């Protein structure tokens, strides 16, 4: 951060533009990154951050505009060329092969001789130096998400990069691990590495970064010093207006709707996480959040709860006072269970099918099927009502699901599930990849739903979202579920510790479920 103004910036982007078939993702953006600085690229989902970074990293080619490296014009045709310049990137979705070990993964990305033993030594050196402890001989599928990120970072560091791009690195980390990561990044910057830090988390950026470039809708909005700019101002720059707030509502807690007792399930697939003795109780009117870093058993828990993967012991899951462990997803849906999965395209919706058909997908019990034939009129009316009530921006009921933006498709899916008047609603990652306005709308709907006497279960990686939306919170780590806390009785620090798996064993209560006990929650 010393001689930055005398020499040209390490990387300069000038009026870079990239469009895709349906949108202009990056629209004439300038960016300067200097040696030794941590430069934030701030923007909400869909602002164009990732597209911009992929262009720097050579994974995408700009339609127009130009780039300079160390003052000399440059065109980066592939990730290989980017790496040759000294640009390294840690992706949000890791570029690791699960079936092989750490050192093999690294060997693939590095030029030179294929000498795994020598490489393993170097890995140990680098990882110790930057406080990123790693065992080079472990298979990647055995590693936690946080450890995988370390593998990614160390792999970048082995190439002594001059510019390191970090794409939303903290979404997979506990608050404590975030502090650790920041120490590593500060050390790197002090040694002269330029770091581009992509995020939408304002507090992190204010803590870590020296400068911030704000993007909105693919355009450059401002370049500011985040250390002095108030958080509220940054938020306004990012979303273009006041930050929407959700309104909490007093809810009346009612009957027990969903109960899980000592649920144990083997991991899904060779690299899955086994569930170990999960207990939880969910009453109508409650919003229970399950926090945790993904890959800790969320997928298995969801599959077991929804019936996509029925479990062996019928009595380990109770819905409305009935043991449903062995029931199919269809039977549980018929009993008033609704579910919004985290993958919208391909699971929550069939990408090439119309919104009308995608309504039929789960809402067919709403009088849309007669004598085995589809009542197109009823299905169309249902889809149209979802679109209208939930303000879904789309090309009408015959628009294919894949043509909608992430936020609008999520609104449609949430709407479709809500309109079926569920008694228990399970939502996974409700606002992943959704813009701020739609996120606020969806969260508010979940709160309102509970107020109308529905039992709501939210599984999310976003701790902020859970603290904002839920009345109760538990953490899943390593296939185990923590004790349940009232949101007002806990804080981010405690939850963060729990996310690392450090929680007291949940006191398993083996009561027989009784739908009529309207007891208030602990």
């Amino acid at each position, binding site marked *: 951060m010393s001689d930055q103004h005398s020499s*040209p910036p390490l990387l*300069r*982007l*000038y*009026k870079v533009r990239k469009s895709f*078939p*349906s949108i202009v993702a990056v629209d004439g953006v300038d960016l300067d990154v200097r040696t030794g600085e941590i430069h934030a690229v701030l923007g909400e989902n869909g602002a164009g951050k990732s597209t911009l970074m992929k262009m720097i990293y050579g994974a995408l*080619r700009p*339609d*127009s*505009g*130009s*780039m*300079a490296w160390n*003052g*000399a*014009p440059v*065109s980066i*045709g592939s990730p290989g060329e980017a790496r040759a310049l000294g640009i390294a990137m840690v992706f949000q979705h890791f570029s690791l092969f699960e079936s092989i070990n750490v050192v093999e993964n690294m060997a693939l990305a590095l030029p030179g001789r294929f000498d795994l033993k020598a490489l393993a030594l170097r890995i140990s050196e680098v990882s110790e130096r930057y406080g990123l402890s790693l065992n080079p001989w472990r298979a990647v599928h055995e590693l936690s998400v946080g450890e995988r990120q370390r593998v990614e970072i160390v792999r970048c560091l082995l190439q002594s990069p001059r510019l390191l791009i970090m794409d939303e690195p903290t979404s997979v980390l506990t608050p404590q691990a975030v502090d650790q990561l920041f120490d590593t990044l500060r050390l790197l910057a002090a040694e002269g590495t330029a770091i581009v830090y992509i995020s939408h988390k304002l507090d992190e950026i204010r803590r870590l970064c020296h400068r911030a470039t704000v993007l909105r809708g693919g355009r450059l909005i401002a370049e500011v010093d985040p250390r002095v700019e108030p958080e509220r101002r940054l938020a306004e720059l990012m979303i273009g207006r006041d930050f929407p707030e959700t309104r909490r509502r007093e809810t009346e807690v009612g009957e027990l709707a969903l109960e899980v007792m000592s649920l144990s399930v083997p991991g899904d697939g060779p690299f899955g996480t086994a569930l170990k003795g999960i207990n939880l109780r969910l009453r109508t009117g409650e919003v229970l959040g399950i926090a945790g870093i993904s890959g800790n058993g969320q997928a298995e828990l969801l599959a077991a709860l*929804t*019936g*996509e993967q029925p479990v062996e012991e019928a009595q380990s899951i109770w819905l409305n006072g009935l043991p449903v462990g062995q029931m*199919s*997803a*269809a*039977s*549980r*849906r018929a009993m008033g269970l609704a*579910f919004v*999965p985290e*993958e919208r395209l*391909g*699971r*929550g*919706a*069939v*990408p*090439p*099918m119309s919104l009308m*058909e995608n309504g*039929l*997908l*789960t809402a*067919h019990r709403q009088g849309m*099927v007669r004598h*085995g*034939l*589809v009542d*197109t009129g009823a299905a169309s009316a249902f889809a149209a009502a979802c679109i209208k009530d939930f303000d879904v921006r789309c090309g009408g009921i015959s628009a*294919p699901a*894949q*043509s909608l933006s992430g936020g609008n498709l999520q609104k449609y899916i949430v709407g479709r599930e809500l309109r079926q008047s569920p008694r228990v609603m399970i939502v996974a990652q409700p606002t992943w990849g959704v813009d701020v306005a739609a996120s606020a709308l969806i969260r508010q709907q979940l709160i309102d739903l509970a107020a109308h006497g529905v039992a709501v279960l939210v599984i999310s990686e976003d701790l902020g979202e859970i603290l904002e939306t839920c009345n109760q919170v538990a953490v899943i780590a390593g296939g185990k579920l923590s004790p349940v806390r009232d949101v007002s009785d806990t804080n981010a620090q405690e939850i963060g510790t729990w996310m690392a798996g450090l929680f007291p064993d949940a006191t398993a209560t083996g009561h027989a479920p009784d739908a009529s006990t309207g007891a208030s929650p602990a």
Partner: protein
Amino acid sequence: MMRSPLRLVPRAAPSQSMLVLAPLLAVALTLLVGLIIFAALGHNPLVAFRVFFIDPVSDINGISELLLKASPLCLIALGLAIGFRANIWNIGAEGQMYLGGIFATGLAIWFHREDNAGGLWWLLPAMIVAGALGGAAWAGITAFLRAHLRTNEILVSLMLTYVADMLVKYLVYGPWQDPQSNNFPFTVSFNDDALFPVLAIWEGLGLDSLMEGTRLNLSILLTIIAVPLAWLFMNRSFLGFQLAVAGQAPAAARYAGFSEKKLVWVALLISGAAAGLAGATEVAGPMGQLNDRWTPGYGFTAIIVASLGRLHAFGIVLAALLMALLYLGGESAQIALQLPKAMSLVFQGMLLMFLLGCDVLVNYRVERRRPLHAAADPATTAPTAEAA
């Protein structure tokens, strides 16, 4: 690394016009290559074209033969399409067709009378039902293994086709061999009450004079009924919808709670029954017996018919007619030009391969690749915006 000057750009949504145009393009390309092959073999391409595609259907007898071949192809392809929509690859329709033929033949032989004076009105309907059951039962083996033991249905259904072939051979060389056949591998010729009546004997509508001497029989009615039923099932029924979801997004089908096992059973039983039905119409139709020369490989060709017809009931009708024409053309070219019969198979393979290739246009646009960045547009000086 060398880069091609063209590149594929994904479309925002599948192109509806290309869905229709791609098969036509594939047919055109196949014809073009076919003409080149004819020329390379020393035949006048235009003459060969006429012999292959025009002559076979230039009279009423030709058209009757065309329909006679298109009918079972269409029937089998309709069944297969239902499975293919769900990504259930039954490629053993050939074997299921054999089993349909065997079941129907069993009844025909059981009630066979040397004097051909049976007059059993129910025999033919019973054979039709038996044929469908036979095909469905054979496909049921695949369905059971796939649905409950997760065994690959492609390999199982195909292996069962080889077994079915052996079963036919065993029967016609063994227990079902016509005693008066001098050890040739065929059964007795069926009695009249075990055969579909040919349309030529129908006196209404002037069919008797129009169709005189042709072999087209009443079984075509089964196909004519099956087409709209298949359309209704695929496009309007909830089960058809579930199958389509399972094919396009299996995770969505699990999410919605559609039973995978049930869908596997439905798809395979329907396609097996359709193939078995086709088998019954063959033995009780143009063959008039069961023999080991069940040549044309309808069960495999129907895979192409289903793909070319876009897994759509009406598309399949057109594709079946085209494929039947290829068969007839092959026969006609064999006689007139001494071209080997395998020519038809070459055409079929090319057609499917071209179709699969052309299908890229449904989901992608072909675009000229932009030249790599010119060297002289420094970010440090005034930039020149590069237009695409």
